[in-house]
């Protein structure tokens, strides 16, 4: 299944996902955020593949990544929200 979401964090996150209802098959993370080094975005997307569509699991992966790269514009809970909304597991905040 495919899905996408636009999530307003400090910057705007635009996320597209492929999933099977339980696991994240792939994710593409776009937006006007900053990440140093920039090339590491591929590593983040790769490390999220196969992760359970559950908030603690997603946040743990993003938090681990954030210790290796500097991210400005979103945090682990916000990216987890964007992914879960894209996968239809959470509702977009009103």
């Amino acid at each position, binding site marked *: 299944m495919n899905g996408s979401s636009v999530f307003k964090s*400090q*910057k705007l996150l635009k996320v597209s996902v492929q999933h099977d209802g339980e696991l994240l098959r792939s994710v593409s993370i776009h*937006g*006007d955020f900053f*990440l*140093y*080094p920039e090339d590491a975005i591929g590593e983040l997307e790769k490390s999220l593949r196969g992760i359970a569509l559950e908030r603690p699991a997603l946040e743990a992966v993003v938090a681990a990544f954030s210790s290796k790269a500097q991210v400005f*514009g979103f945090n682990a809970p916000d990216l987890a929200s964007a992914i879960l909304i894209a996968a239809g597991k959470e509702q977009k905040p009103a």
Partner: protein
Amino acid sequence: MKLLKTGFSDASFNMGIDEALMKTCQEPVLRLYGWKPSAVSIGYFQGLEEEVDLEACKRHGVDVVRRVTGGGAVYHADELTYSFVTREFDENILASYKDICAGILLGLKRIGVDGSFAPLNDLIVDGKKFSGNAQTRRGGVLLQHGTILLSVDVDRMFDLLKVPSEKMKGKLISDIKQRVIGIGKSFDQTAQAVVDGFEEHHGMNFEPLELSDEQMQMARTFAEKYRSDEWLRMR
């Protein structure tokens, strides 16, 4: 500290020069430039098709380029653009933005624009944004580039950029008109003010710089990358 004025160039060559300066950086260089034709640049992490109305850009003769830096989509028209490359910078990203922007703010104050830094990467005056800035760090070199809006054409900007919902377009345009402002000075006056501000902030005078043959060749080669579909449609 060197000062490089490269005049007006197309988007790919502008980005090519910035990357060439980064690759060859020995000492700090401030570059001042403009865009001809006008252009839309998107941030490194943005989706091209998500952000830019490519047909509209083509119709209006506007270049489209992906930057090497993050941040949002920018319509480059009546503005002064700067880039600053240096090997000496604060490891703290917020502090380095603030330090580089301090020179700009000092200079603009001299011409009556009493702006301030709005973290992470904006400059504002009277609560309205007049400058967006973005930086990258590669190979021990920091590149920060940014715009100083002289005037703003929000309607044209929204012709060129995609909006999340056509229904909301009117409100979005009216919001942006309230939040963004041009400083109302000329390109040359603003350029001189930025030079003066950097000199005051760093306590030293600039020496003029011309691009070497090697840097020109590098800039042309990098420009080909920026022109390529592979780079433009990377995300």
